């Protein structure tokens, strides 16, 4: 190796994009490590507490794009307390000091403050793209700072964040000289927007291709915007509340007629069937459609719309589409790859939403389907076996039967066999979420067959520690395991402690692990942070007083090279 010129290695390494490949290259020898680290442009940190930000900046000084994830996935469902952590501040500060050439930042499930956004806006002269997903802690003031100071900003993409509304002025902060926007998504904002400023902004950004409005934008405003941005490829409408008989409606029809490049549609707040006709002209070209905010669009009108969308690859709908609607999807959308069916009436006594029949229909019509998120009230083993046979290409399969622990209604059996069929048939399955009545057997199947499984979500399932052990032993590529309300205890937790070093994280809530078990894990594995989240009132008193037998409410274990963390709140104990 000593006579293998570095320039050649550099040249080769430059072709490597994937993190996995680059991580592998960097472990070969010191020289390759150096070459790789200086040439890495995209850095991804899957767990913000796995490493200190300074170390990342020091290792990759020339990075252009940084992605960091904070809270565990179950935070999306309110299982992680509000101030658990995941602060963006240290990352932005470290980047400002160590990597001023940063151009892109993507944060997911982190706490971002207005100060952080202002620091970000001022510290990176070449900054181009900010993507915040499921973050919180900031307001429109922070967005104003981004708009004001980021010259040459190309992308501001806010997905499903909690943003405090401090007024509508932030959009006006984009200077007149800002003409570089390619993508702007503020759909998650709840407040009013300065529509004049928005229309002017859209008009002066000729490269704008993706625009997602929030619910406060009216149809009238949408019309004006579409008139100025006919080249949009990806549109999230604002409120689609419009009356058939108004001029606004007719203008809407014309506006969509003009959008020849539109391939992706979302938004549709307050939409009712009467606004759908306006969208017909673009349906034939649509590859992605998100109707999951439009509970009033259902029945025949929805089917009529779907039947036009024969190029659809991605569809997000509410379960009021019904089995009949799904059958229409199955016969029309032969290229469908991703389907998400969200529940629309989770507190109701169940109007017939979708059942296993809808899923079976989809599977027989859409053989390219590789990603599924399906909420339903019931599922049968037979259906799952059929689905598995029809669709062997699943990489993501998430089934949520809304009643926890519900068996197959026809046979009263657990759904072990159904899910077993899925993992056997789908050899490339990377992500799986289970639901319904499940015994340890399903975990046996998963351990045996789900070789490429990386993420597994389990709720109200299993009989004993064996279930968890099957998974930990069998799934060699497991990275994230999240479990709630299952009878897995210390024995399962401690069976193979070195396994957790090969994973990003383990989450267990409302299971049977005890404080003693967690302490044992922490003692055996100093390379892990073992976090106990205890929110009950007695938790303030004194960790020492709690016996080892005390049941742990929430356990979060993750590998880290940064021992402990300094920003944990009182109710988080790091053992």
């Amino acid at each position: 190796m000593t006579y293998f010129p570095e320039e050649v290695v550099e040249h080769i390494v430059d072709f490597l994009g994937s993190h996995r490949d680059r991580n592998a290259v960097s472990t070969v020898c010191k020289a390759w490590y150096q070459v790789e680290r200086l040439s890495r442009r995209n850095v991804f940190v899957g767990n913000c507490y796995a490493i200190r930000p300074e170390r990342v900046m020091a290792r990759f000084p020339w990075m252009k794009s940084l992605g960091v994830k904070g809270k565990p996935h179950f935070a999306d469902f309110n299982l992680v307390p509000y101030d658990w952590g995941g602060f963006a501040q240290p990352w932005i500060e470290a980047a400002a000091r160590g990597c001023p050439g940063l151009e892109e930042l993507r944060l997911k499930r982190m706490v971002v403050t207005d100060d952080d956004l202002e620091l970000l806006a001022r510290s990176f002269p070449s900054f181009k793209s900010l993507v915040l997903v499921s973050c919180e802690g900031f307001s429109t003031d922070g967005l104003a700072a981004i708009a004001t100071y980021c010259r040459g900003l190309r992308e501001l993409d806010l997905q499903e964040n909690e943003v405090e509304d401090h007024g509508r002025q932030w959009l006006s902060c984009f200077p007149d000289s800002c003409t570089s926007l390619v993508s702007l998504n503020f759909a998650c904002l709840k407040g009013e927007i300065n529509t004049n400023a928005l229309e002017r902004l859209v008009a002066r950004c000729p490269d704008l291709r993706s625009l997602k409005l929030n619910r406060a934008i009216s149809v009238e405003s949408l019309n004006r915007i579409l008139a100025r941005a006919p080249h949009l490829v990806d549109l999230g409408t604002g409120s689609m509340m419009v009356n058939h008989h108004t001029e606004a409606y007719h203008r809407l029809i014309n506006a969509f007629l003009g959008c020849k490049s539109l391939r992706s549609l979302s938004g549709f707040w307050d939409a009712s069937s009467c606004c759908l006709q306006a969208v017909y002209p673009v349906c034939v070209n649509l590859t992605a459609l998100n109707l999951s905010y439009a509970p009033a669009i259902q029945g025949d009108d929805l089917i009529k719309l779907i039947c036009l969308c024969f190029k659809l690859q991605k569809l997000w709908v509410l379960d009021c589409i019904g089995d009949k609607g799904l059958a229409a999807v199955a016969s029309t959308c032969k290229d469908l790859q991703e389907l998400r069916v969200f529940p629309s009436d989770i507190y109701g006594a169940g109007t017939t939403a979708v059942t296993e029949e809808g899923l079976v229909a989809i599977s027989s019509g859409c053989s390219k389907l590789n990603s599924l998120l399906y909420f339903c009230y019931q599922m049968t083993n037979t259906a799952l076996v059929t689905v598995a046979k029809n669709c062997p290409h699943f990489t993501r399969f998430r089934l949520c039967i809304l009643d926890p622990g519900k068996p197959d209604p026809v046979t009263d059996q657990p759904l072990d066999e159904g899910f077993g069929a899925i993992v056997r048939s789908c050899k490339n399955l990377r992500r799986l979420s289970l639901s319904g009545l499940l015994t340890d057997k399903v975990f046996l199947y998963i351990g045996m067959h789900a070789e490429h499984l990386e993420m597994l979500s389990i709720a109200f399932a299993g009989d004993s520690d064996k279930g968890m052990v099957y998974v930990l032993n069998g799934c060699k590529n497991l990275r994230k395991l999240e479990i709630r309300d299952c009878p897995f205890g210390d024995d399962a937790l401690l069976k193979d402690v070195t396994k957790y070093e090969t994973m990003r994280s383990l989450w267990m809530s409302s299971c049977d692990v005890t404080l003693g078990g967690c302490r044992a894990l922490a003692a055996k594995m100093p390379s892990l942070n073992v976090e106990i989240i205890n929110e009950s009132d007695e938790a303030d008193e004194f960790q020492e007083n709690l016996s080892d037998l005390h049941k742990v409410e929430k356990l979060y274990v993750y590998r880290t090279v940064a021992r402990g963390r300094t920003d944990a709140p009182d109710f988080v104990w790091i053992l």
Partner: protein
Amino acid sequence: MEEDLENRGGACPQLLDLIPNESDWMMAPEASGGGRGVGGLDDSEDKKLELKLGLPGVGGGEEEAAAVLCLDFFSKASKTTTTTTCTGARRRLFESAESKSEGPQQEQQAGFLQLQSRAESGNEWPHKAVWAGGKADLQQSHAAPGGAAGPNTSSQTRAAPAPVVGWPPIRSFRKNLSSSSVKPSVGLENDNAEMKQKFDNNKKGLLVKINMDGIPIGRKVDLKAYDNYEKLSLAVKELFLGLLAAQRDTPENENEAAKQAFVGLLDGSGEYTLVYEDNEGDKMFVGDVPWDMFVSTVKRLRVLKSSDLAALRLGAVSRKRTATES
């Protein structure tokens, strides 16, 4: 599990590579002294007879009593002999209940009661039973924890699942999209939000910002210190009275006028009205919902001039609500 460990003895290395082939799998559990809880289809009889004295590490007594409150939902009357008619998570608690009374396990039919997460329940099972969406029979069982294995009513219809924290696994903003404008669902949504808040709020107290129109500096108020709207209204007055009086630059008798400003904060009749912003970002009148619900959803408070109300987004809120109804 203890028996399993004894039988396996020094076979720990085997456990690390448990999956040579399927037949070994099926053998292993039976070899290990009546392995509990593996694949319920054949082992139902064994399971029924198995004694389980409650969750590991916890005294059997309280858990058994608690177990009786734990009911599972079945979509039709189930007389099957398999014990797979309940979630694994619940099964062990059932087994402890069964040691007291055989048989009726299969007959547990009721509106679905999915109690709070098990670990945190501990002694709190009785409280959490109240979440059972108002099903009378469930509440009876709550009242009589000593009874055996819960009510026997069977239910063919699917009843509304009682709210469980973090279930179903969807983001909060999706929970408001019910197509009908049914008020009950709104109530339950708030219940769920309340559950979320119970976990989100520190026990330290609930400090929210409060601003008053015309007064540049805001205050913070600890909502945990009050238990009803009257007390809150008084507190608001106390916080801002001095500032308002100073603002008005008044001689002494005008203090009465300043005090008068705080009359009718809650019913819209006064010079000022108390409103709040909730966890969904909507602005709401204070006083509409039960106090507990208010505390769990409030994010900040404002004291607005009543005359300004029309100009605000409160109008937008009611528009939003009716929109989903159309």
